[in-house]
């Protein structure tokens, strides 16, 4: 039960290591800035900085990345409250309730609720993460190729919950991710296949540039559709921290938001947005004043914010426990770890406890910085949002490209990144979820490898995938999740639409 303590305790001295502390601070600033810019979330931030992490020590790199996600999930709500524009989709409900409060002149209250809920949600969820991930990882000790294949199938099912309302398009997106993995290189026979005579393709399509293209560049290209001219809108508001009595009734929504956020975040493919929406709904059901929801409910903001930040820890559970990225940013985290020479997967925790401490240090450090400076950052962040967006978008494109080039100094990587960026843009615009493609692109070669090695292990018996107890169990979970995912996704997207429309 308490075997997570050593990992947690090991993370504390890391906070005082000058290099790691500096990286956490840098991550915090990057996360704050990128999170606050409308439309840009932690995934894009990860995509931007990923190439730089290859230059860092692995522990510092993971602390840096997690500090980004802690900060981004806080800062995306600042423009949501003060301008009604969520920094990323997870803050949609905060945008509705928070902006309503802002227009009622209660900006200080909304910002304070957001600040408190985000900090508490983030802190508590770190312990949930450790509590859940270690038993899971221990289970993985019994896994052979067929079981691993089953685990990766669970990850594939994640795709279902990312598909949105058009299942066939969702699966096409997943297929494109798999295709990125199959081109060029056979992971079992280590022979060349499908290289189409292009020499550079013989090693396969490089995963990190492809991911950065699909997840980060695609979003930037999409933003370049619009010519923003927000420079002139001035925003004035009062910022006074409310008394404790005003925040007293928030305990329940914050706590339930934290639990829901961690658990939903842990479901592969779910991530911050559904976590926040479900927590919001849960808080509304439990609230004594459900009619306030949608018109400036502080309970709603609290639940949403706690869940958003808790999902940071939740998403790490499948990512670190099994090597299954639950979201776009987690796919990039796995990419960063893989490039550092770590194989995320069932044995990751037992082999690299210090890296898990690094993850915890990042989340913890980011949260501590948020507690100290977050309140004062709000005003500065608002200035940043009003900054010239055209310049931000174009320069971010440039930085992404140079970053990808710096990976191996190969123009081929940059070409892959831009092509994937354009494909990702088309996917964003025409209802194919690029996150699904990114997810399967990460998993593709592992799925194929474990399926084929498993098949060789059982001498060609497909039946063994159902009769081996763990395999059957995990595949059963995958089926359940698929069912839950299809149902939940349809329901949630419908709700979100009516709420936004209203």
């Amino acid at each position, binding site marked *: 039960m308490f075997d997570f303590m050593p990992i947690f305790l090991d993370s504390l001295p890391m906070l005082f290591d000058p290099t790691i502390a500096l990286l956490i601070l840098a991550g915090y600033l990057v996360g704050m800035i990128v999170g606050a810019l*409308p*439309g840009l979330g932690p995934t894009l931030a990860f995509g931007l900085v990923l190439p730089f992490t290859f*230059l860092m020590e692995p522990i510092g790199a993971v602390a840096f990345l997690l500090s980004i996600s802690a900060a981004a999930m806080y800062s995306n709500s600042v423009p949501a409250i003060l301008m009604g524009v969520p920094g990323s989709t997870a803050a949609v409900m905060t945008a509705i309730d928070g902006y309503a409060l802002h227009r009622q002149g209660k900006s200080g209250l909304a910002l304070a609720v957001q600040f408190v809920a985000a900090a508490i949600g983030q802190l508590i969820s770190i312990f949930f993460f450790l509590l859940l991930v270690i038993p899971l990882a221990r289970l993985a000790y019994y896994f052979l190729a067929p079981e691993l294949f089953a685990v990766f199938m669970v990850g594939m099912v994640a795709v279902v919950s990312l598909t*949105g309302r*058009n299942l*066939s*398009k969702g*699966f*096409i997106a997943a*297929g*494109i991710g798999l*295709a990125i993995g*199959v*081109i060029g290189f056979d992971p*079992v*026979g280590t*022979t060349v*296949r*499908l290289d189409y005579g292009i020499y550079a393709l013989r090693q396969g399509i490089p995963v990190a540039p492809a991911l950065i293209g699909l997840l980060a560049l695609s979003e930037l*290209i*999409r933003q*370049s*559709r*619009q*010519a*923003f*001219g927000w420079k002139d809108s001035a925003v004035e508001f009062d910022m006074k921290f409310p008394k404790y009595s005003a925040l007293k009734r928030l305990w329940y929504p914050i706590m339930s938001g934290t639990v829901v956020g961690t658990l939903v975040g842990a479901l592969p493919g779910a991530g911050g947005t559904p976590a926040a929406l479900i927590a919001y709904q849960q808080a509304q059901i439990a609230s004594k004043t459900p009619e306030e929801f949608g018109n400036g409910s502080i309970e709603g903001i609290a639940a949403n914010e706690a869940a958003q930040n808790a999902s940071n820890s939740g998403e790490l559970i499948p990512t670190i426990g099994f090597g299954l990225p639950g979201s776009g940013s987690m796919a990039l985290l796995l990419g960063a770890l893989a490039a550092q020479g770590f194989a995320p997967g069932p044995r990751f925790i037992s082999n690299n406890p210090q890296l898990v401490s690094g993850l915890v240090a990042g989340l913890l450090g980011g949260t501590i910085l948020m507690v100290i400076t977050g309140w004062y950052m709000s005003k500065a962040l608002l200035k940043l949002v009003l900054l*010239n967006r*055209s*310049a931000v*978008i*174009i*320069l971010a*494109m*440039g*930085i992404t*490209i*140079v970053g990808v*080039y*710096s990976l191996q100094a190969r*123009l081929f990587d*940059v*070409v892959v990144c*831009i092509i994937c*960026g354009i494909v990702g*843009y*088309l996917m*964003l*615009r*025409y*209802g*194919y979820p690029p996150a699904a493609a990114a997810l399967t692109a990460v998993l593709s070669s592992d799925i*194929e490898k474990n*399926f*084929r090695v498993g*098949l*060789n292990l059982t*001498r*060609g018996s497909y039946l063994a995938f159902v009769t081996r107890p763990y395999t059957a169990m995990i595949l059963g979970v995958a089926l359940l999740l698929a069912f839950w995912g299809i149902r939940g996704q349809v329901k949630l*997207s419908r709700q979100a639409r009516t709420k936004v429309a209203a």
Partner: protein
Amino acid sequence: VPGIDKDPATDERPGIDKDQVTDIVVAVVFTALGLLIAVTAWRTPEPFRSVDVLGPNRFPLLVGAGIAILGIFVIVKQVYLAVTKTFQKGSFEIPGQAGDEPDVPASGLRAGIVSALLFGHVLLWETLGFLLSSMLFVIVSMRLMKESSWKLTIGSAVGYTVVMFVMFTLLLGVALPLGFTEPIFVRFGLVDAIR
């Protein structure tokens, strides 16, 4: 930028929506990609193997065929929709689409041109060099994004290029291509000759 941003008010005749057509074109492209992979995997001869049950071509075949079949399904559905139903211009909604922010002019053409510029400027790195080609990219793209201040545009272009160059090439040792400007930097000892 004249010609890119249309006034939505004057652009509302019924008929097939432009988005509807592109939706089908995108599905056709993805289907073709699936077919290409499936057919290549199908036609690749199986290598000799002793224990590998499936071989290297079955999984790609499955993936390609899956994309193609679903793609054909999407195409048929969308074509059927386009033939049987008329949409008011701009009212065609694509489920799951990442929509534009309201009240801000949007244009797919601009996104296309910016992507093309991004691609083009990278191809020019080896001849023009990173410095010049990136500055050009930033200036042209920011003008396309309707940035009206020349001061900011040129400032961003120069600032970005110089910071990237100093950080990557001078500090981190990543050799960004310098093209024809390379001899100048070599002359002043900033970078090593032909790496």
